[in-house]
């Protein structure tokens, strides 16, 4: 309507978010799918040959179909990213900003202290995502609420040193390299970008959540894990400078109006009107700070279908998904578990 721009001066513009529709049409697959392993803080998955490894806090865990998860190695600091090269080199990044390759420390360029994702390209190059210049990985929520865009993506060609490929990214959180470049999920901007040479080009925009790790699928497409949904209230708080900074200064971080890996665990967390439990029912479609969402992307990067754990579900905070032995394996960080889902394509 023609009067709207004038009226918006008085009433403010409505805040909208992309709908969960089309390929994002909700279901409850993640809550129904079988649990492969209960694992606290299950985060990054990687396949080392036939072995399936997962990070869980400070521990590196091997997941086996027929036996209990087994701790492979423990570290002094929480693991933030894992990657395995085709030659079975295992690279591990820690919260304290160190990176090791098969146990050998790797020297990092200055400023790389927040490693959120690692991946080996088909050419053997190691790609590295540095979430932010200002915060460690555990400070991700502060990085979002400060509206930073200080992340970078680095590449180390075989036998060479790290070279920056892209800068000023808003929390790069997932990497999927191919022969020519790398697909990067840029979490705070809700988009996937393609880093190729020195150009950064958006590939998939307006995601309905905060994208995390990416993984290749056998048919040339990809899997994308989304760890939290977009939420109108959070988007509004991001525009409310005074409230946001007061909140960051005075409210404990777990109780911020911000995305989370899991929510509803404490009565001190914020509650939105739609989330009120009425007649014993917590509405699945109510606004939430966390969710579980895994998206399947076709080779041309259009979403084809998705697996959900909605507001009333428990398997939230899906940070990582990989295809392993013909099925998708999903780590739900908020749900403290690792799930498997049959390929539905």
């Amino acid at each position, binding site marked *: 309507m023609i009067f709207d721009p004038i009226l918006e001066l008085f009433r403010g513009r409505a805040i909208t978010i992309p709908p969960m529709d089309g390929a994002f049409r909700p279901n409850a697959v993640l809550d129904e799918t079988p649990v492969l392993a209960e694992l606290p803080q299950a985060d990054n998955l990687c396949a080392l040959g036939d072995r399936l490894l997962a990070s869980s806090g400070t521990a590196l865990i091997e997941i086996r179909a027929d036996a209990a998860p087994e701790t492979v190695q423990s570290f002094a600091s929480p693991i933030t990213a894992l990657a395995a090269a085709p030659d079975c080199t295992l690279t591990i990044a820690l919260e304290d900003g160190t990176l090791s390759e098969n146990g050998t420390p790797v020297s990092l360029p200055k400023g790389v202290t927040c490693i959120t994702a690692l991946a080996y390209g088909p050419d053997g190059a190691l790609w590295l995502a540095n979430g932010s210049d200002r915060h460690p990985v555990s400070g991700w929520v502060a990085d979002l609420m400060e509206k930073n865009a200080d992340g970078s993506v680095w590449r180390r060609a075989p036998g060479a040193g790290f070279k920056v490929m892209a800068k000023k990214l808003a929390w790069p959180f997932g990497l999927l390299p191919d022969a020519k470049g790398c697909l990067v999920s840029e979490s705070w901007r809700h988009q996937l970008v393609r880093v190729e040479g020195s150009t950064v080009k958006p590939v998939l925009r307006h995601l309905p959540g905060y994208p995390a790790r990416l993984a290749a699928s056998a048919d040339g497409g990809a899997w994308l894990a989304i760890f939290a949904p977009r939420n109108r209230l959070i988007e509004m708080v991001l525009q409310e400078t005074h409230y946001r900074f*007061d909140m960051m200064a005075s409210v404990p971080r777990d109780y911020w109006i911000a995305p989370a890996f899991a929510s509803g665990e404490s009565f001190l967390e914020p509650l939105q009107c739609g989330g009120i439990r009425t007649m*014993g029912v917590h509405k699945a479609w109510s606004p939430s700070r966390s969710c579980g969402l895994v998206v399947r992307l076709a080779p041309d990067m259009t979403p084809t279908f998705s697996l959900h754990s909605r507001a009333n579900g428990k398997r939230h905070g899906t940070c990582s998904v990989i295809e392993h032995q013909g099925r998708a394996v999903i780590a739900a960080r908020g749900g403290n578990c690792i799930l498997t889902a049959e390929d539905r394509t």
Partner: protein
Amino acid sequence: MTFREQLQAWRYNLVPDHVIGEILTKRWTDNAIPFLALVIVVASFGSAIPGFFKLYSLQESTRQLGEFSLVVTGLTVVMLGGGIDLAVGSIFALSAFSAVSMVFIFEQPVWLAFAASMATGATFGAINGYLIGFLRLRAFITTLVTFIIGRALYDILVVNFGSKIQMSMASSDTWDFIGDGTILGLSVPVLSALVLAIVTHIALTRSRPGWHVLAVGGSRRSAHNAGIKVRQTVFMTYVFSGLCAAAAGFLIATRLSGAGPGTGHGLEILALTAAVVGGNSLGGGRGSVVKGIMGAIIVMVMTNGLIRLGYGTGTNQMVLGILLAVAVTIDIRWLKNRHKVLNEVYVAPVYLRMGEAPSAVPGSGTPYALNSELSGATHIGLGEVEGPEDVILDRDDHLYCGTRHGEIVRFFAPDYTRSEVFAHIGGFPLGLAFDRDGNLLTCVGAMGLYQIAPDRTVTQLSAETRRSFTSIVDDARLRDPNDLDIAPDGKVYFTDSTKRYDAHEWTLDSIENRATGRLLVFDPSDGSTKTLLDGYRYTNGVTMAHDNKSLFFCESWACRIHRYWLEGPKAGTAECVIRDMPGYPDNINRASDGTYWMAWLGMRTPSFDLSLRHPAMRKRMARRLPQDDWLFPNINTGGVVKFNDKGEILHTMGDLTGLAHPMVTSMREHKGELFIGGILNNRIGRYKIDGADTGWTSNDSYWGASK
């Protein structure tokens, strides 16, 4: 407190933003735009035309305006009834001709001329009314046809008899007086327009036929279903319009003492423009005589003003057309969006800095520390009962609760598996109490204070109190009566939580946080209701102290418990006994050991407490986000808290699993057990209290051991 925060506090606590929303709820705000247009038009033409406000000039233009207003008033009534009358111009002309011919050709007295005019109008009106009302033809086409036929008839008559009229020598003083004279400085057309406007206004707003017209215009089908004679009502509106046009025609006949080919030409468009510009809806049912008159003045001043400024007929018509288009657009947009505007501006948050609360986190070591004791409660009526805000037991141990369907449900002792609807009231029954004679009294949200006798007869005890002087929306009516208790002398003390929101929107009041809660008393001896205290942030639970010398009531959004003294040196005053709790208190009831139970409907969260210090943020939130996304206090976790007369907290119970009793709004101790209700829950909890007196009931505590 920073300077910015102080400024916010002043801005949002001293400027009464809520007034805007309350004014917008008034129907008369529909008049605002036409009134503004009226002021602008009169002011601009008044300043552009020299001598516009001179007495003679006004006298002449008001005569014309009076006649025109008569026509517009008639047309307004037709439009309110959902129709349209294009024939007013030709009726006007024919009536003028009737009057003139009666006096100048037949040389009859003036009253007969008037009667002839009115008969002409009534006839044409009746033809329109019959065709549209009874034969149900389209109003637009039908009146267009009568307009054309009437106009043709008039033209024929004027051609054949015009010269005869001009040559006539007949004269009458009465006739001249009506045309030229004044009474108390007012001309006859102005006087008659005023009288007609007042009578029509009163008829439309305060009489049965007037209401019928509005009802038919609002919705024909609903009016029919309500038993209104739709066809007859429509018929009468056209007859009325015909009579109004006829009266105007008579007046112009006396003023001009003749009838020419131009009489009444284009009048229907002028009148239609006036009615619509005034703000009468073309769709019917919405509008008023005052609007019609405003529109008439706007149109008259504009057309006359443009002519006097030297613009021709073309310009005049153009301006009228644009005016009509703008008015129709605004009418439709406003009608469609008014409730949206109201929604967006109604919530007007205030600034509040909540005090630091002791922690309620399990293991924090404070008396408020929550636990999951209540998750061990067994359930009653799971899935059968919806929204038992309060629960109570009678002397036979039967259990009563209100539901969101407006019913009082009774569960039968001893196992409470069977239930029946004890009484249907409507509204949302909230607080419950038994009086000395076993009557069940309840505060019904959105309705008032009601009594249900043991034989199930429902009686309204109170629905209003005295209106406060500064109120814009009538605050005499009780919007959200919430909880009550009964003193030994039979007086009922009860709370009305908010003046700003209806009972079902009670949670929105927490966003606004304006202090409008009241404590009231109903005196059964004379049936009066008095306001004892006003200006609390959501007054909620009420209970008489064990010694009946004072009562406790809570202020939910401020997380406080107050004591109101009924006797002693502090009688009539309230003091705060418990402040800065970590939860939002709801109902309060007596416990068997001389202490009190208090329900917590929800818990404070740091993010919401902070938002209370950012009223501007909450205001934008209410405007920019759909309601489902608004930040609320955490009302998914509640509890039951025990406190004593001194305000000391003794014990806290909760259900941190959130599965059985996420929100607790009431609890009632009875024979060693606690019965737990929740306004958004689907069950009543039954919890065994360790070490409680298994013989104690609240009925005995209030009214003595059973007979």
